[in-house]
């Protein structure tokens, strides 16, 4: 009987040791690695945002975006003409929208969407995941990690995320965005890994759908991602009317 107990204990210990690489790796550092593999800490990029309706009709927006550090990002709309010159700024939990003809930058909220469709402002002005979420648990299955993330504050758009990441490239493949009560708000699918140059290899397409917007789909396509340093002053309300000068 003792022998059986020893064997069972040995099996449990061996099992724990085999799964050690995941648990040994600091949870937060894995998330930070995913963040860094997705984007350099400071960079510029172009994105095309496509909202696709159930009947196949599409509406497209083109944006120029810059990001610095964990919590500063700006996006400037360059097409279509009706949106040209609009910019959105995010500093941590603060977000603003500037419309050139209309007036001064106004505060907007993360759950609104300046473009309609399934992407909201928090998706368009995405910060590092590690800046907004703590890692509660990591599971490993096959060649994927599943990270269970919990929002650090109530100001974050989604209370929980389930992030699936490729264990080799440490890049996200799918993210489920959930409420506090585990209701699914939307799913992001990361597709078409592409070499953008400068050591940046990441998915070039993010698709999203949502049970709240049945049969609608939104897509974000990335281009020209490159490392670039910016002064902090770029990420201010006063600078918003001058965003075009960064291109």
């Amino acid at each position, binding site marked *: 009987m003792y022998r059986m107990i020893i064997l069972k204990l040995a099996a449990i210990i061996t099992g724990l040791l085999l799964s050690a690489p995941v648990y040994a790796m600091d949870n937060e550092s894995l998330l930070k690695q995913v963040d860094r593999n997705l984007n350099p800490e400071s960079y510029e990029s172009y994105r095309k945002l496509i909202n696709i309706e159930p009947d196949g009709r599409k509406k497209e927006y083109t944006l120029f975006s810059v990001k610095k550090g964990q919590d500063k990002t700006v996006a400037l709309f360059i097409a279509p003409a009706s949106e040209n010159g609009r910019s959105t700024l995010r500093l941590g939990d603060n977000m603003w929208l500037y419309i050139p003809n209309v*007036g001064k930058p106004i505060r907007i909220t993360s759950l609104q969407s300046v473009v309609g469709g399934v992407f909201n402002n928090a998706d368009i002005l995405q910060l590092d995941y590690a800046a907004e979420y703590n890692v509660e648990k990591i599971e490993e299955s096959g060649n994927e990690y599943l990270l269970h993330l919990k929002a650090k504050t109530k100001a974050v758009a989604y209370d929980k995320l389930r992030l699936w990441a490729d264990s080799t490239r440490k890049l996200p493949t799918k993210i489920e965005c959930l409420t506090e009560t585990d209701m699914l708000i939307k799913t992001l699918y990361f597709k078409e890994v592409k070499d953008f140059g400068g050591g940046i290899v990441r998915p070039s397409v993010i698709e999203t759908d949502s049970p709240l917007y049945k049969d609608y789909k939104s897509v974000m396509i990335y281009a020209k991602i490159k490392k670039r340093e910016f002064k902090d002053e770029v990420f201010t309300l006063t600078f918003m009317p001058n965003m075009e000068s960064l291109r």
Partner: protein
Amino acid sequence: MVRYITIFLTACLPIFFIAPYVVIPSYAEEYSFDLSEIEKKPYHLGGHMELKPYIFMSDKDARLYKLRYYNRNEGDIIDEYHAELQLEGGIEKGITRLFVRTNTDYNKSHIEESQRIAIYEGYISLKPSSSVTIDIGKKTFKWGKGYAWNPAAFIDRPKNPDDPELSLEGFIAASGDYIKSFDGQLKTVSFTPVLIPVYEQINDSFGEINRLNLAGRLYLLLYDTDIDFNILTGGSKTPRYGMDFSRNIATNFETHGEFAFIDNFKKRIVDRDGGFSESEYDAVSYLIGIRYLTEKDTTYIAEYYQNEADFTSGEMRDYFLFIDKGYNSYISSGSDAILKRASSITEGSYGRINPMKDYLYLRISQKEPFDILYFTPSITGLLNITDRSYSLIPEFLYTAVTNLELRLRAAIASGERLSEYGEKPSDYRIEFRARYYF
């Protein structure tokens, strides 16, 4: 009357309601991103054009109707047409940028046909670093945080709360921006000094001429709150000091406010017999407001506005009774001299948008109800708290076609006689606007 409405709706409604069902060719499933789309050009050209027919249902007993149409019979329905072309262009080279926005208005009514071409903005901008900008020329500054009113926007033209998102004409000025960012609770400080010359033919609508005015704004992002301190001095207007703030309390809840102190404000009022008197006092004006988004994508914007510089209900009653006197004099003697005096003071002060002291604004908009994408119905209410008169504006906005915006709205003005909205020349108005961006 029924014939006019039928013609109008026949012309406008089909465009609005058929548009959602216009089939736009579907693209292939493959996503493409043509890099030529994002190539930056040294110049930029764009703008919008719009057509706006509208009809009014007259209130022939209203004082402002009598003032405007005393010598003609306009009938129960008045139709007017508005067209607008707004062009903008910019050239950029190195740290220098030239920007121009022009606005061409065409209006046609039973009374007149008019056209106005104006340069709304036209300035040179120098940007030696990301911390410093210098602008010289005609520019709109857009100070303040309020949606419908901006009491602390001392160097902007007043917005129209019925349509606060319309672009406004600027003033000729020299201004600078200095921005500094920090780590910690104080994240940003920026300072904007502005020089506004007011001489004959230069900014002469701003205030007293032959003065060089100095304005300034200090902006702080402190504890996640936008805070501005504003000042205007120089003589064209009496000195004024202001502050405003805006803060997100939750992911779907924003709050904002503005406060302005006007030193030695001079108010000129007319009594019911046409006698003028002037008083001078320090006036305070303020606004508080919220913007709230529900889980069902309903947005509420609510604002309360008080302005001590404006007229009391007694002062407005006297003004309306003065119009009465002029109208009675015209009827009895055929002389419109008093009505012409009344017209001139209307343009000067009594006729400005929301000329009284206390107002409440509420706008409720619902994004894409009944799964109709790009469709936003809304309703806006504007209550004059002092005399209990109000305006109500239901609106439908449809933006499914890229660069085309279709808007259908009505406006209902209601109130007792001698109240602000009770004396508007029309009780009902229907308006259709088609705007195309290019």
